[in-house]
């Protein structure tokens, strides 16, 4: 009995879709991750992903054909709410996020157990939390939504690149120069929420933060300008996600953890290179 060849795996349409969607998703996550990490908001990825999990659970129980229909608006609303409650980590916004995220997780799991739409609740939870094969089993709608949204986020990010720099480097100065900080922060919060929801398809709820954070942190070890940080983070994530998906497909490991594993290994390499370059 011969094993499936690498090329055979690549011939399956759902593998090809996973590669395209995976690259797009991780690209927009990495780009957004740069300002997020610089504003010391790395924990947001985790918190909002838990909220999204709760929303997904409810959507599943209510038999939505696509959970994103519910999880996207709910997560965006949560992000905007948190932004209102207190920006950043110094005005109690972090405590509120903690409550919201843990509460949503608990509620989601409870709802799933009380109203199982499938006979296999723990399996669904497992897959959703860790993204073992989610990216390989996207429905057509899911795939186009993911690709479309990530592309839109990337384009938006590129067009507002300088705004991102200004607001991230020195918000006070930007506001003094006439920047519309409220609008920027609201749009940023909404976009982060969208990216988190679609990233959950790739690496699962629990590993979403790594997709946002690791490329940025790795890039900052070697890059000397903001432009370089963004470019390196983008390249980093594309390479690691491609590698992660392909390794998972061939070696039979769960996709989410493999991508994150690739990220961490690559980060260590970058940290070493950064050390050497100094």
């Amino acid at each position, binding site marked *: 009995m*011969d094993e499936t060849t690498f090329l055979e795996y690549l011939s399956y349409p759902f593998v090809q879709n996973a590669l395209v969607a995976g690259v797009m998703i991780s690209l927009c996550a990495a780009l957004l991750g740069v300002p997020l990490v610089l504003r010391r908001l790395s924990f947001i990825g985790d918190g909002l992903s838990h909220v999204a999990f709760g929303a997904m659970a409810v959507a599943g129980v209510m038999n939505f054909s696509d959970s994103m229909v519910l999880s996207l608006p709910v997560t965006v609303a949560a992000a905007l709410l948190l932004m209102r409650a207190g920006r950043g980590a110094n005005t109690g916004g972090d405590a509120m996020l903690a409550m919201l995220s843990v509460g949503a997780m608990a509620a989601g799991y409870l709802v799933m157990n009380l109203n199982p739409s499938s006979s296999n609740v723990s399996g669904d939870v497992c897959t959703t939390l860790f993204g*073992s094969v989610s990216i390989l089993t996207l429905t057509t709608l899911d795939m186009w939504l993911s690709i479309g949204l990530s592309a839109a986020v990337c384009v938006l990010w590129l067009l507002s690149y300088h705004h991102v720099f200004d607001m991230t480097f020195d918000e006070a100065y930007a506001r003094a120069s006439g920047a519309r900080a409220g609008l920027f922060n609201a749009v940023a919060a909404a976009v982060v929420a969208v990216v988190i929801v679609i990233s959950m398809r790739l690496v699962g709820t629990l590993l979403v933060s790594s997709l946002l954070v690791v490329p940025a942190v790795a890039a900052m070890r070697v890059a000397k300008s903001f432009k370089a940080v963004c470019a390196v983070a983008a390249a980093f994530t594309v390479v690691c996600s491609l590698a992660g998906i392909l390794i998972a497909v061939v070696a039979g490991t*769960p996709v989410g953890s493999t991508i994150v594993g690739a990220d961490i290994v690559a980060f260590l390499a970058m940290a070493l290179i950064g050390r050497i370059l100094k």
Partner: protein
Amino acid sequence: MKHCTMKLALAALAAAAFAPLAAHSADAPAQPAAPRKIKLDLAKMSKTIRTAWAVKLLQNPEDFKGDIIQIVGDFYADEPEDEGGERRYLCALKDAAGCCTLIDVEFRPREKLSWPKDFPEEFTPVTVNGRVEVVRDGKGDAMPRLADAVIVRQKK
């Protein structure tokens, strides 16, 4: 005692004699006893892809209708609830972590097998191939079922 053994021996001989015939008649036309052409062989794939296909089988069984596929999972039998019901044989396909069952695929053996000796031990891994047909379960959802199934390996 001697009578019983004689009867058993005769029965066995008859079974042996008629088995090939039985196999032939239950067969679809032009289906050789030699290795059948399997369109989708999950046994040859990594766990990740196997799980992905299993999810696809669960989500859209219509897509696989008529295909010969080979699946790998844990075997078990489902005793009928009421008197006249039939025993069902199932293969439980697990998820990638191996902890939860994604889908139970019922298979109907091609050959007439007697329970339990012709079957593998329950809850052990088994490889089964067969032709996919789509049936409706109690809730009206579409479920895949393997017809003309052949159990390839009894035990890992």
